[in-house]
């Protein structure tokens, strides 16, 4: 299951990478740009990395500027409950929200691209930093702070990173193999960091705006998970309808952080929780029930998102019922188990013993079953006195063992019924050994009456067979009954 979830996460990332390609092309068509467009946009690796603008075009695109302007206006205007009677899709604010969702996804991708850019440039200076600080925005801030400094004790990273990571970073910096950057490269890197941070603030604005409008857009979803988380979910999914189309297991993973730093314990890391982790309901459940609560929340949130995407319940009542359901379920999980009732004993001998069957039991019974040797010893030929261990009728009788005509002096252990099926396969290899598998047997048998006797391989087959083995599938068997009509 871990690999399946991993592949989902990878898919989400892959999706955004593809969108980045598609959107960049769109931006080129829509916007009026002065820069030269590189010939092959689909292949990002071939882009000219020296120029930041050729890599990150989003900020200059018309679409971006338009939407950001509208968002700022709307944020200043404050929340106003626009006409609820209208169909959602016609409302211009809704369109803005949809655009904002798309934009926030674009901004994320853009940040990733810029992060790659910064990383590639800064690799000459401090290659280990990229594996220590994963988050793109943190990385950008750290790079900006450190700049070209070689001695990290002069750099104050307080507040940017957790202290444990600061420590690791300073230690690694003292042994780094990097060299200071040339001035122009450094300048480009700092520019890229600034741009990344600007995009980050822009994304925050967009999310704030969407959050303030969330109660109007998706009332049911906001009732369950809260408006902030709902906005984030919608932003990451790329719209309310996109969120509604996702299966609940994907919704659970939206916003999940990738694995923690190597060397730190993974025992405390929350397994596979995304933005759902920040909901109030999740925070108030005891830790033991958290994974179940997460799954429950994700499924109900998906239901609510589906209701909202079709505008089935504008007042949010469905959301309230779902939230009640969630509360009730979590409470039920926390109930103590019912007290144990003392049970009276059952009537003796009333319940028949449970007889088991199956291959295992058959093999176990085989160990105590009567062997062919014992069967032969139990039977006697008519009119022929049997040999006995002490001779003359005293001691244990040998029965058919070793009698003339039985063809066997040494009787081997005998194959189990199951092994018989296997033996049938290899029967071709057995001719001439009269069926016995022991290495010491020969085709000759020494009998007291006639001396050396050659065995007839078929003779022994009928000796014991008929009573205990079914002749239905026997190869030497005949018709069991032929009716005269």
């Amino acid at each position, binding site marked *: 299951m871990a690999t399946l979830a991993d592949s989902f996460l990878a898919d989400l990332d892959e999706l955004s990478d593809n969108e980045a390609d598609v959107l960049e092309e769109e931006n080129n068509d829509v916007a009026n740009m002065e820069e030269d467009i590189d010939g092959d946009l689909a292949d990002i690796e071939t882009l000219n990395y020296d120029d930041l603008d050729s890599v990150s075009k989003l900020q200059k695109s018309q679409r971006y500027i338009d939407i950001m302007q509208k968002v700022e206006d709307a944020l200043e205007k404050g929340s106003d409950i626009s006409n609820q009677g209208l169909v959602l899709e016609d409302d211009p604010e809704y369109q803005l929200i949809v655009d904002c969702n798309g934009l926030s996804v674009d901004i994320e991708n853009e940040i990733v691209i810029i992060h790659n850019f910064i990383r590639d440039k800064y690799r000459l200076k401090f290659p280990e930093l990229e594996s220590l600080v994963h988050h793109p925005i943190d990385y950008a801030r750290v790079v900006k702070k450190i700049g070209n400094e070689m001695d990290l004790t002069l750099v104050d990273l307080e507040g940017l990173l957790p202290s444990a990571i600061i420590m690791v970073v300073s230690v690694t910096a003292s042994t780094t193999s990097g060299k200071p950057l040339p001035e122009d490269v450094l300048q480009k890197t700092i520019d890229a960091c600034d741009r990344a941070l600007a995009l980050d603030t822009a994304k925050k604005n967009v999310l704030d705006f969407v959050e303030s409008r969330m109660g109007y857009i998706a009332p049911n979803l906001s009732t369950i998970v809260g408006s902030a988380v709902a906005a984030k979910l919608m932003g990451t999914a790329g719209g309310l309808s996109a969120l509604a189309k996702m299966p609940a297991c994907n919704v659970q993973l939206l916003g999940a952080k990738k694995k923690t730093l190597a060397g730190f314990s993974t025992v405390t890391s929350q397994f596979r929780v995304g933005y759902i982790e920040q909901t109030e309901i999740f925070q108030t459940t005891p830790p033991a029930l958290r994974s179940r609560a997460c799954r429950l929340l994700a499924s109900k949130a998906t239901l609510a998102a589906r209701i909202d995407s079709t505008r089935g319940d504008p007042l949010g009542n469905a959301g309230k019922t779902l939230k009640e359901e969630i509360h009730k379920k979590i409470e039920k999980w926390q109930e103590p188990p019912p007290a144990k009732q*003392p049970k*009276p*004993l*059952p*009537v*003796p*001998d009333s319940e028949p013993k449970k007889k088991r069957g199956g291959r295992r039991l058959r093999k176990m019974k085989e160990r105590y079953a009567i062997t062919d040797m014992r069967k032969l010893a139990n039977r006697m030929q008519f009119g022929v006195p049997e040999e006995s261990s002490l001779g003359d009728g005293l001691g244990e009788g040998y029965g058919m063992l070793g009698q003339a005509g039985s063809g066997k002096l040494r009787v081997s252990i005998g194959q189990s019924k199951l092994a018989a099926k296997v033996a049938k396969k290899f029967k071709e290899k057995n001719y001439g050994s009269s069926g016995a598998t022991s290495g010491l047997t020969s085709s000759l048998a020494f009998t007291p009456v006639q001396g050396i006797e050659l065995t007839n391989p078929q003779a022994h087959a009928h000796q014991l067979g008929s009573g205990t083995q079914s002749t239905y599938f026997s190869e030497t068997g005949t018709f069991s009954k032929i009716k005269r009509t």
Partner: protein
Amino acid sequence: MENGCSLQMDEVLASVAEKVKNFAVIYVVDITEVLDFNTMYELYDPSTVMFFFRNKHIMIDLGTGNNNKINWALKDKQEFIDIVETVYRGARKDRGLVIAPKDYSTKYRY
């Protein structure tokens, strides 16, 4: 002394009653009040346990010499349940005498 013995047996019987209720019912009779059977069954010990199945008296071989009754205080609940179960099994098969799972010939030794 006698009180203690009968009280102990009483406690065992009370705690076992619920568990064996599917196949046995326990009646407590005060022999000072109901005197009719005192001579018939020789009831003069502080506590006596006898077993009946379909109006037939079932004997148990406890090793004590007296197969008709248990006339001391059994302390262990599970032992008593085992005896009741043995009696039930044997009685259902129409046996008049069953053999107790544990031997009580040495019960006077501690």
